């Protein structure tokens, strides 16, 4: 007779592990199943870990977690072919514990995190693929793995199987992802000596920098590139919605080479040795793409629930928060001894009441708008570059004339009415 657990968590990323950890801590019998060789071996993200939601799972985690650098500066680059307009916020108090955010390397971090869940009493099995949920009389009662004698049962199954959640698709909770709902991101881990990183990014040993690059980094398509500093490496990546890649006939590997060779980027990564090459889909559909989140004996968390805020590049924090909320729902259900759809529905309420639901709702139209209105990335970023560069080029023109010229850069090409309309539209979806 196959064994029965209280909870089976499919996937050992931030959402699944948060859930497994919290459930195990509450004394539940938890089995976590990961398809990779070890947790983190297949997991990819840009590399920013948000302290707040991680702390909610493991207080003072930074004392022994493998974090890279505390992020003290966040830069944004509006990039043109050979110019850029940048903004930056730097605050050294972000380095004081508890820090605001950290950079991490997922292969290391996820292993550490999953091990915390194991220490809390969760059982972890690697290298095992869950093929489908076992459904009996309309209720999810366990999972079927690809191993011999591979069925295992539980009161509730948590699907933390990532963006392209095959399991929730099989349950019919999820439609096939549309190209505009996901971004394809490629990324490299580039090794550089610590001192070189400190010099090039103007930081000390434990301080880190994030740079988000817009505009020419994606050849004017909807998407971003990023450069994050680790202790002795950089994470450099770039992604656009799949639909933009298809439309612009861009190949992801060509795009990352384009970014690496960009004159604004190449001096930062000069001499770096490519240590890892990764690619991943990111759910960018936001609020409208959230699937059915719960059913009889089943919950969806993290990327599988499409919980990513593309505008603020937040995902891992939503994953952890959703995993935690799922655990709280399960613990309450266990007390009641009832894992029906009705009881588990409180999970959806909790998600919508949390920052996850609120933030995704706030930006619900942003991605679609920018996807359909390519002028923001294609036209305005180069215009801002021309206007700013023109304004600061000293050529004997009076400053008042310079100001007028700078403004004209926009209105001449687009017409005042269009510019105002575009500004209003952007404000509306971002407000």
């Amino acid at each position, binding site marked *: 007779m196959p*064994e029965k657990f209280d909870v089976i968590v499919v996937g050992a990323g931030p959402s699944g592990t948060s859930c497994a950890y919290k459930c195990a801590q509450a004394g539940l019998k938890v089995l976590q199943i990961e398809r990779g060789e070890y947790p983190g071996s297949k997991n990819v993200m840009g590399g920013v870990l948000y302290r707040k939601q991680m702390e909610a799972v493991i207080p003072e985690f930074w004392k022994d977690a493998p974090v890279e650098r505390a992020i003290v500066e966040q830069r944004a680059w509006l990039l043109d072919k050979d110019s850029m307009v940048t903004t930056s916020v730097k605050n050294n108090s972000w380095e004081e514990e508890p820090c605001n955010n950290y950079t991490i390397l997922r*292969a290391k971090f996820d292993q550490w995190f999953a091990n915390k869940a194991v220490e809390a009493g969760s059982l972890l099995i690697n290298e095992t693929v869950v093929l489908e949920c076992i459904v009996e009389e309309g209720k999810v009662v366990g999972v079927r793995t690809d191993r*011999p004698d*591979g069925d295992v049962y539980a009161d509730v199954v948590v699907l933390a199987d990532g963006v392209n959640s095959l399991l929730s698709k099989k349950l019919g909770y999820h439609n096939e992802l549309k190209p505009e709902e996901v971004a394809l991101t490629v990324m490299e881990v580039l090794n550089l000596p610590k001192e070189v990183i400190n010099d090039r990014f103007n930081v000390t040993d434990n301080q880190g920098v994030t740079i988000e690059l817009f505009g020419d980094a994606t050849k004017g398509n909807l998407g971003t590139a990023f450069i994050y500093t680790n202790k002795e490496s950089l994470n450099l990546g770039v992604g656009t919605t799949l639909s933009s890649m298809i439309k612009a006939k861009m190949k992801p590997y060509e795009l990352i080479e384009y970014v690496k060779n960009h004159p604004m980027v190449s001096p930062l990564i000069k001499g770096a040795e490519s240590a890892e090459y990764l690619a991943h889909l990111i759910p960018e559909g936001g609020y409208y793409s959230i699937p059915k989140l719960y059913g009889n004996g089943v919950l969806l968390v993290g990327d599988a629930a499409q919980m990513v805020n593309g505008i603020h590049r937040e995902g891992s924090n939503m994953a952890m928060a959703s995993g935690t909320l799922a655990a709280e729902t399960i613990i309450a259900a266990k007390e009641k001894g009832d894992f029906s759809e009705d009881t588990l529905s409180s999970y959806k309420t909790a998600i919508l009441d949390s920052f996850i639901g609120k933030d995704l709702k706030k930006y619900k139209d942003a991605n679609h708008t920018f996807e359909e209105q390519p002028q923001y990335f294609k036209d305005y970023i180069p215009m801002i570059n021309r206007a700013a560069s023109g304004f600061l080029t000293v050529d004997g023109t009076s400053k008042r004339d310079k100001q007028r010229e700078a403004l004209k850069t926009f209105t001449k090409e687009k017409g005042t009415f269009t510019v105002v309309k575009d500004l209003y539209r952007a404000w509306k979806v971002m407000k």
Partner: protein
Amino acid sequence: MHIVVCVKQVPDTRIIKVNPKTNTLDRRGIPAILNPFDSHAVEAGVRLKEKVGGTVSVLSMGPPNAVKMIRKCVEIGADEGYLISDRFFAGADTLATSYALYKAFEKMLEEKPVDIIICGKQTIDGDTGQVGPGIARRLDIPPITNVIEIKEVDEKAKKVVVKRKLEDGYEMIESSLPCLLTVEKDINPVSYSPLPNMIKAARYEPTIWKVDDLNDVDKKQLGLKGSPTIVAKMFAPPKLEGGKKIEGNAEQQSKQIVSLLLEKPELFEKKRGRA
């Protein structure tokens, strides 16, 4: 029947790089794995158990995190795991390692007899293939190397028949039990572990012995102190240069190959003896 398999945790040399300046291994981020030859040894033990019954124990010497590798053996189907782990064992060469494992066997033999010991042919980090025969010598049992098949086991008559792989053929050997086999990868494909084994392994805690748990250990024979091996020099193997591509139609190509072969008469000399 009590089958004991000796295993080792090794760095995954498939992805390891040699630092060209210092000639040392760059171990940054390299995961530790069960020595691939040893996974075949564990599988051989498990298959033998399926045939004749009994238990399969695995024995290893290594750091405390080698527990993970022992769990891997339980996934494959081992019943019990023993790890000897102590700083006194650190830095051991094959002589000191086989002494430490021999002492562990003595301890194990207090509890129950051992009928057959199976080791991998060699490790992928040291590549020496000496520890298995070293243990056999110390236990005074026959070592049989390069085994590719366990043909027959007769528990009552205390006999085993195995097939060995040689450079120029095969050899069938009958041996008394207990004996020690070192196995080639050809002995079996390692099967995909069933889920109940995975769950059992995730829960499994092996027996861990420190040096003081073993009896009458001469500490001078352990670890770095007990290792006469001296590494005089290390160098990275030269990078392989690309081969020559032979082009043309079939006739031209075969002519070229023949003339190339004829330039190397050493290829046609008859080999004598065995390696």
